[in-house]
């Protein structure tokens, strides 16, 4: 293979994996607190449309990212209100959030369809970007790609080195114990859920402002769900989230490259497009097969409502 092809495939893989990393790390924090938010798909859609609108009106993509983040946080607050305050079923509420988010984004996004935004230029890191083969792919990237790396470092530090992370893990393992030694379980779960929503909003913003600078209904096309699967695939460990996200990015990109390469192969394009979804199923099966691993690593109170008796 040509060098430039390797570089550009690597570059594209990192870009494709980035929204997955951001969204999945957000969901990871939410789940570590014991909250299962299945609304990532709808939250991303809202983040994407909010970011597009804000960028369209202000011309500043970073204000767009902020808007996407705010929209995502608001969506997750709605979820928190339902599941944490009103103690609704988390699975049903997550589905509701997705249905609502996908619908609302289509509704408010109608005026923005068929508009485009100017591409956001990449940020080149001097010297590092000159490394042959890898340099241009790794260090001449979109700002949010760098952000996803920083986020990974931050999440690892938070979960395993900080006291707040210790409290978060404790709440996710046994909310009743955490309550009895005096922690506000509901408050901590709200924070974790809001963080997850904000990250899903940024993930959406990346899609509509950086990745393909336009808004189309349904443009998230399952990435929110894939991010949820990634968290399981990573057995709730941040580093593996990144590995999994790039694996998926690789699958998405290679099928695009094959479709666009004009290679005469006897495979229908639809099958190639289905690859990311089939790959998701495949890795889920692969990792879930070992129930012991899942049970050891998943937060023990995941998905269970908690209400302190007052």
């Amino acid at each position: 293979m040509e060098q430039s092809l390797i570089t550009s495939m690597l570059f594209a893989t990192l870009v494709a994996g980035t929204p997955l990393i951001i969204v999945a790390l957000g969901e990871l924090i939410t789940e570590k607190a014991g909250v299962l938010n299945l609304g990532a798909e709808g939250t991303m859609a809202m983040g994407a449309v909010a970011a597009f609108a804000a960028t369209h009106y202000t011309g500043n993509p970073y204000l767009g990212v902020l808007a996407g983040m705010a929209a995502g946080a608001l969506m997750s607050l709605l979820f928190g209100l339902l599941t944490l305050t009103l103690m609704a079923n988390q699975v049903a509420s997550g589905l509701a959030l997705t249905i609502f988010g996908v619908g609302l984004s289509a509704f408010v996004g109608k005026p923005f369809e068929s508009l485009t935004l100017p591409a956001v230029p990449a940020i080149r890191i001097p010297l590092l970007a000159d490394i042959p083969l890898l340099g241009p792919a790794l260090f001449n990237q979109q700002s949010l790609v760098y952000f996803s790396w920083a986020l990974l470092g931050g999440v690892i530090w938070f979960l395993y080195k900080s006291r707040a992370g210790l409290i978060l893990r404790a709440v996710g393992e046994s909310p009743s114990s955490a309550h009895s030694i005096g922690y506000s379980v509901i408050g901590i779960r709200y924070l974790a859920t809001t963080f997850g929503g904000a990250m899903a909003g940024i993930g959406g913003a990346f899609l509509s402002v950086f990745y393909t600078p336009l808004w189309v209904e349904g443009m998230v096309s399952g990435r929110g769900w894939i991010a949820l699967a990634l968290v399981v695939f990573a057995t709730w460990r941040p580093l593996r989230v990144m590995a999994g996200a790039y694996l998926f990015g690789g699958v998405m990109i290679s099928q695009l490259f094959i479709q666009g390469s004009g290679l005469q192969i006897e495979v229908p394009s639809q099958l190639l497009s289905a690859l990311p979804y089939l790959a998701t199923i495949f890795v889920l099966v692969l990792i879930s097969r070992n129930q012991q691993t899942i049970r050891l690593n998943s937060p023990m109170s995941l998905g269970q409502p908690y209400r302190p008796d007052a």
Partner: protein
Amino acid sequence: MLSFKLETRPEASRTMSYLSPLIAVALTMLGGLLLFSALGKDPLEGFQVFFLNPLRHWYGVSELLLKAVPLMLIAVGLAIGFRANVWNIGAEGQFILGACGATGVALAMGDSSGPLVLPAMVVAGALGGAAWAAIPAFLRTRFNANEILVSLMLVYVAQLLVSWLVFGPWMDPDGFNFPQSKMFSDSALLPLLVEGTRLNLAFVMALGVLVIGYVFMHNSYLGFKMRVAGEAADAARYAGFSAKRMVWIGLLVGGACAGLAGMAEVAGPMGQLTDKVASGYGFAAIIVAFVGRLNPIGIFFASLLMALLFLGGEQAQLYLSLPASISKVFQGMLLFFLLGSDLFINYRLRVRLTLAKAGD
């Protein structure tokens, strides 16, 4: 000073569990009024266009019933699974596969007319949906893979599959390259119930499925087992009810019902297979199942309501120049309000009036 306190009820309130959907509907309509005025429309006019216009004529009512048919069918199947905590949310994909199965039969039969064409399509539709649902069932029971994610991923795959079919092998040669199959022959179309409308035999079929679903859920031992599995998994294991069997039944029944709905769509109002065969019925039916309290009688009414939201969206597009996706906003609101007001099934609010002390 007013103070509010939430208290656990000693027993779940049955009254509240029936009242809660009604409260949710009322709140959704209220939300609708606010939404219309926020969009700069006259809220009363918006309300009329959205909720009343579709029902002005008998034709409108027949369209409402027509739209409600797939929702009823899918929601009953899903409810059986949901009661057992089997979260099949890929009904949209199973719907598509049902439509494909039925289309396969219809196309294979060609113009040959016969009384067996429709029954064969019904069977093929149900089998198609069930087969698609069997994938998450197998992966869940054999490898413990989460059925929510697997069934959902398969929706995307099903959409690509139907797109391949209508762009490829099943494309109508005389269809000017449109992504659609040949029109079905008359013997492959469901007979109309009322001339001049599009309402067809599938409505009767759906009512039959509702009745069967009711008996299954409320009177059968198997239905009881599934309820136990959903409400207390440890109790089900203690009693000896096989969890794997519950997963299989929940998914297969859900898939078969969704497949049936897909068959009814291609053999009914569409008359052919296109790549747009699924228009969100599979997801809307999730809301129908919840709003209907996972109970066939409730599902009947909830599907009418949901169908009204679909039609209202079309009306809003025509007369208020709002995007049709407004109906999805309403659907989401409805489910939110329902989940929220369900709180009062298990809790009650104590409002206490305490006189403020002087100086407070």
